[in-house]
């Protein structure tokens, strides 16, 4: 596609006809920021799960009750759900064109991510504070 800066169109008409001019940059940035955060968090998560493989309840609960695992697990959950809902939003916007279904799916994904994220954070806090 031609470089838009060489276009004879005004900025306004370019935005009107070729772009959405909404909040693409903020979305892009949040997606990358959470991606970068998830690199070390995912590695930590996998190493921890491998070491806990097959472990009984007492061992898992004692591990999650320690400050560092609890904090890292909460960070992992928050970054994961934020990243996931941003990604699912793009997939929905790309493939679902029927307006009601599109908005409905977006609402479901956004609210679902918040609900599941809060549930997971609550679970970690309950274990950490000895529920």
């Amino acid at each position: 596609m031609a470089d838009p800066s060489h276009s004879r169109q005004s900025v306004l008409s370019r935005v009107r006809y070729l772009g959405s001019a909404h909040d693409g940059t903020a979305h892009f940035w949040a997606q990358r920021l959470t991606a970068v955060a998830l690199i070390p968090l995912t590695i930590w998560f996998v190493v921890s799960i491998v070491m806990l493989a097959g472990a009984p309840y007492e061992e898992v609960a004692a591990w999650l009750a320690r400050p560092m695992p609890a904090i890292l697990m909460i960070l992992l959950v928050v970054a994961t759900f934020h990243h996931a809902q941003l990604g699912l939003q793009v997939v929905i916007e790309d493939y679902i064109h029927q307006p009601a279904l599109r908005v409905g799916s977006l609402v479901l994904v956004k609210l679902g991510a918040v609900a599941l994220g809060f549930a997971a954070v609550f679970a970690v806090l309950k274990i950490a504070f000895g529920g």
Partner: protein
Amino acid sequence: MSSHQRPLSPHLQVYRWQLTMAMSIVHRITGVALAVGTLLLVWWLLAAASGPESYETARACLGSWLGRLLLFGWSYALFYHLFNGIRHLGWDLGLGFEIKTAYATGWTVVAVSILVTVATWIAAYAAMGAL
């Protein structure tokens, strides 16, 4: 919406399948799969927060052959999305756009994601004392 006629890409089926396009769609598919897979993480955390009995139920389900198969697929999707995500972050920095480089990094991601998945499962079985 634009009132102009926008140029449309030819339909996908006229393209010969190439590594780069296949990896791009697999990145999306693994992303959606991992978003669904977060349900497993939330369930595991809630089970641990609910006490020994519910944790034992979760552990038995995840430890069954079907559970392990699901977790194996989940772990592959995680590693693929992680390593290909790093490849994407490179592109965001303007690195690795040359066709030769894109193929080299692509095959590296395919190989490393398989190797790390297998190594992780070997480590997990060793941690369980099953080797």
